[in-house]
């Protein structure tokens, strides 16, 4: 909404075909009290043990996210104390992010009789010949790592509980809707996320640095909003486009400023202290910059070589 009000709407959204397909697949995996899910779990994580005949599926309904999170924590404690198999369907977990609570909803969490908790992530992208798209698996692993972190907070105050660092990723097999599963070790992603969470600036600190009366109400005028968004520093890189609603706004700003990052993070690394397009081109043309600076020297050599090469074939290259 904010992005639309700023005049740079983001093209996000999910196709209802993908949505329906994802839900249908998840329902299929969890059907019959999770029999199929538990079979896959014991096949991949059970070490040859026989699949459990069934699991208790505690009721997790409660009012509001706080209520559901409390209900989930209670259900986890009860299931661990009971020492049997339990399947928590869409539990609610709370995790503190930058000083404010964020509520997370994993697809499922399984409690083992020995007190281990395993995160189950059900995705609708296919696993073809036992391998899936690496980028999508990576995203799923990062997502699961956050769930594992949130579960660890509860496990710390639950006797006999331990959170498994291996999560179960369930996907459709090949081109069918039959489920297959793979174990993903998320220790690395967990460590990265934990480190990033501790380094995040607290939301209050960001808010405190803002001028008095700053508001992000989409009802305000585009200029007011622009100024408000401007007040929060952001480092745009093209990768933002895939993840953030405000990316198109940041990109327009970065381009208007002539920031070289709008061409990619690696470009910035190559150009050392030169940060604007105009600055780089002036340095390359010999109008600005210190010739003793290795970046400037390399740029001038590059410009000279490029000009020489284009000259040598001039007339032959159709310039679009």
């Amino acid at each position, binding site marked *: 909404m904010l992005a639309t009000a700023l005049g740079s*709407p983001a093209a996000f959204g999910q*196709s209802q075909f993908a949505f329906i397909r994802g839900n249908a697949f998840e329902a299929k995996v969890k059907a019959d009290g999770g029999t199929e899910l538990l079979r896959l779990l014991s096949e991949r994580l059970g070490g040859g043990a026989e699949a459990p005949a069934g699991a208790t599926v505690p009721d997790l309904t409660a009012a509001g996210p706080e209520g559901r999170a409390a209900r989930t924590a209670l259900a986890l404690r009860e299931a661990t104390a009971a020492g049997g198999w339990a399947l928590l369907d869409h539990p609610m977990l709370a995790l503190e992010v930058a000083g404010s609570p964020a509520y997370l909803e994993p697809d499922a969490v399984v409690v083992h009789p020995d007190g281990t908790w395993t995160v189950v992530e059900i995705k609708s992208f296919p696993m073809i010949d036992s391998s899936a798209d690496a980028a999508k698996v990576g995203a799923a692993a990062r997502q699961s790592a956050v769930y594992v972190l949130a579960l660890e907070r509860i496990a710390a105050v639950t006797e006999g509980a331990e959170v498994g660092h291996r999560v179960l990723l369930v996907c459709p097999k090949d*081109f069918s809707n039959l489920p297959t599963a793979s174990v993903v070790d998320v220790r690395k992603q967990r460590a990265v996320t934990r480190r990033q969470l501790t380094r995040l600036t607290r939301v209050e600190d960001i808010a405190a640095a803002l001028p008095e009366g700053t508001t992000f109400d989409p009802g305000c005028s585009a200029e007011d909003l622009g100024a408000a968004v401007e007040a929060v520093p952001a480092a745009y890189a093209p990768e933002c486009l895939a993840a953030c609603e405000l990316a*198109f706004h940041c990109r327009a700003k970065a381009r208007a400023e002539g920031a070289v990052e*709008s061409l990619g993070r690696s470009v910035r690394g*190559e150009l050392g202290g030169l940060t604007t397009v105009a600055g780089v081109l002036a340095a390359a043309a010999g109008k600005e910059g210190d010739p003793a600076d290795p970046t400037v020297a*390399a740029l001038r050599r*590059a410009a000279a070589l490029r000009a020489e*090469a284009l000259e040598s074939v001039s007339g032959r290259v159709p310039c679009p």
Partner: protein
Amino acid sequence: MSLISTLARLEAVDSGRAQPLATVRHRHLTDRPLVLVPLTTAGEAGAPLGALVGTDREAPRLLSVAQPRDRDLRFAFLAELAEAVLPHIESYADAVEPAARKETDPETGKKVDVEVELCTDAAQLIVPSRAGVEFVRLLGRSMRFRRTVEDDPDTPYPAPARVPLLGRWLTHYGERARVPGSSLLLATTDLLNRHWATGQSSLEDQHLGALLAWVDPPGGGSGAEAALRAELERDRAGQLVCPPAGPATDPAFDNKLLAPAIERFDRARTALATAQDGPDFDTRLGEQSDAERAIRSLLAGVLLPTWDAVWRSLDLLRELPEGARAEDRWTRDRWSFTGHRDRVRAGEPPQPRRDDAVTAAQKLASRETAQAQLDAQEALDDPLVMAGRRLAGEAFVGEVAEVQMAYSESKRPSPRPLVTVRTAERPHLGERTKVYRSLDGDPGRSQTAEFVEYASEDPDDGTVCLVLRITDRMGRGKEPAPGSVPEPGDRIAWTLFEHDQRGGPKLPDPENTPWTHGGPPGSGGGQAEQPDSVTAEDLL
């Protein structure tokens, strides 16, 4: 990205137009490429939605699936795709020329020339984007293990006759596309990105509409603005003016236009199934075909802009003269095409799901060689690419200042002339580093020299003199053959990389590969690949 292409991108930002990254075309384009613009259903693996296919830009063939989740309709689509693609491929399979190939004679163990057939040309397939190349692979994978009624009368849900064959060909094309420099299956975005630098990031360059807007802005305006419009502009109904090049569709298109149309088709089909004979049946049949036509026109609406963009890109690329060595790489593609044709004709089973260790190692080695070869050939064909190598210290251009005759110290002294070269560049030369130059009149031959020493440095204009010793290609006599030694005043480009890259030592045959590396016993093959397990329901 090298500094020189970064500079080109910055120039593009500054000028608002794409800037050349190459002065020749580095990929071969055939006279009659087959363009395929596929669309897939969101969230489904291998459920195509539609496609435009054809060799004539004025007459694309539209294939569509009215309900992508219906197995029968999908099979009908694939059968139609096979009818559109296979005749094109097969039209190249029979035009052959004799060629010689070295093979080891099993009795004597010696290398002998064997005369074989080589297709004079190969069928080229062009898709809009890299995701399209992946989709071709995926389609190939989804089809090649299918069974037809002829293969196995008891198979559940038999596939139409030619579908598995199409699967094998698409798999081959998808696999070949992973070889650097190959041109059997090309993505239009890759082609444009190879030859022009835009003022946006390489991530944004994957959008064919935006990329083409930079290279060839409509009406000759600013490429940057045109690219932004191509990326984001929507009409009153909220639909993108420049639809994505696929195979994924825009979610707004799916939700607002396609889903209602498919729903209407489903209703019409259910109504038709329950209809009685007579006029009622005819009306409902009419309703169903109306609904189907509506879906087809929706798909055509989002496919045609991409179709035109692909052909427009091909036009732009054809304006560049083809690089001298691109033909050589195309010959390898023809060998690859002929090889697959022979395997299909010999009745070999489809490509396995996973390569065995020996095949995988061979593929990897050949791709590494192809990459080295591509890097060298592109630089030799194109001064602009060579400029990048010169900047990196992997090549240099210098003027010959002095030539001094010298001889090797052996019983029969051979000429080893010392050439002093003056250059303003700073190549990475170490003791006895080998450098190479092309010999005039024969692009396939290169002369080798080795670096001896730095002779002098001129701090005023920043040039250095360096001494090279020529070591070959001077004939057998005591005096070097005429024209084989550079003369003072010659301006010569020397490279630190070999011009003709050869692969490393050949890998042993599978039967001689030790078991530690995937060879015998029980090496591969053996068990035939089983068809995929299928969803029991008719709908996915």
